[in-house]
């Protein structure tokens, strides 16, 4: 499971560099996320713009990451493809996450 992590001011931006988070990769995704979120940041944004498909195992893994971050850091999502968005919408998990169209910028950090 390839991820990239980039600390942009107070935002840790993690991009998933794979086209799927599914039953074959959900555990590796959770393990890698646990590693990269050790970096201290106020916010964590998961950039899913390269992910075209996510199944219920992948959804469960994203929820597990949110819970593992604890109450002080929220997991935000960005760049959901239509099929990924459908999974979040139908399961009502879109109410749980802050979802951005594009990766947000840290205002203080910009420029």
């Amino acid at each position, binding site marked *: 499971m390839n991820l990239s992590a980039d600390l942009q001011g107070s935002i840790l931006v993690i991009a998933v560099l794979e086209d799927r988070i599914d*039953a074959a990769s959900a555990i590796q995704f959770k393990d890698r996320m646990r590693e990269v979120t050790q970096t201290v940041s106020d916010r964590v944004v998961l950039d899913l713009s390269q992910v075209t498909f996510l199944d*219920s195992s992948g959804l469960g893994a994203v929820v597990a990451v949110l819970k593992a971050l604890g109450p002080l850091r929220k997991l935000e999502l960005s760049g959901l493809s239509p099929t990924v968005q459908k999974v979040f919408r139908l399961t009502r998990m879109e109410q749980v996450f802050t979802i951005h169209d594009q990766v947000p910028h840290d205002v203080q950090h910009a420029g």
Partner: protein
Amino acid sequence: MMCNMRADRRRAWRMHPPPPPARLRILLDADPRAVRAGLRRLLTTTPMCDLSDDFRGTTEIVLAEVLNNVVEHAYAGQGGQIEVTLDYEHPILSFEVADTGVSMPAGRLPVGALTPLQPDTDLPEGGFGWFLIRTLTQGMTYRRRSDGNRLTFWMEAE
């Protein structure tokens, strides 16, 4: 899942009568990587490539959930074979999924209700699969026989 077919050909299809009836049967091993490969085969060839991206996405969600359930529950991760038959006759896309694993719990289809989200309770990390299958299909049957399980479900292409 990207289609092999060129976009201009797909657009051309849509201006013409719906794709002709088609049937496709594949056999796959019951493990998550083989499920990925099986989905790719089913979703990137005709008739699926002749249907809309949105409907293909919906079909992939349903089929992935059904097949991964067979891997994880019918075969309990121990492996086996899954036979998938796709039938398309406009506008109905139907699938039959057969395996020789153990029965569904109590010999019947799960209800597939979603755990309600409540404040101050732990968020669910599972229980989404059957909900998605039930929500995105128009009908489903399940038969348990001495030689295994046979699940059929169908969806209407928009």
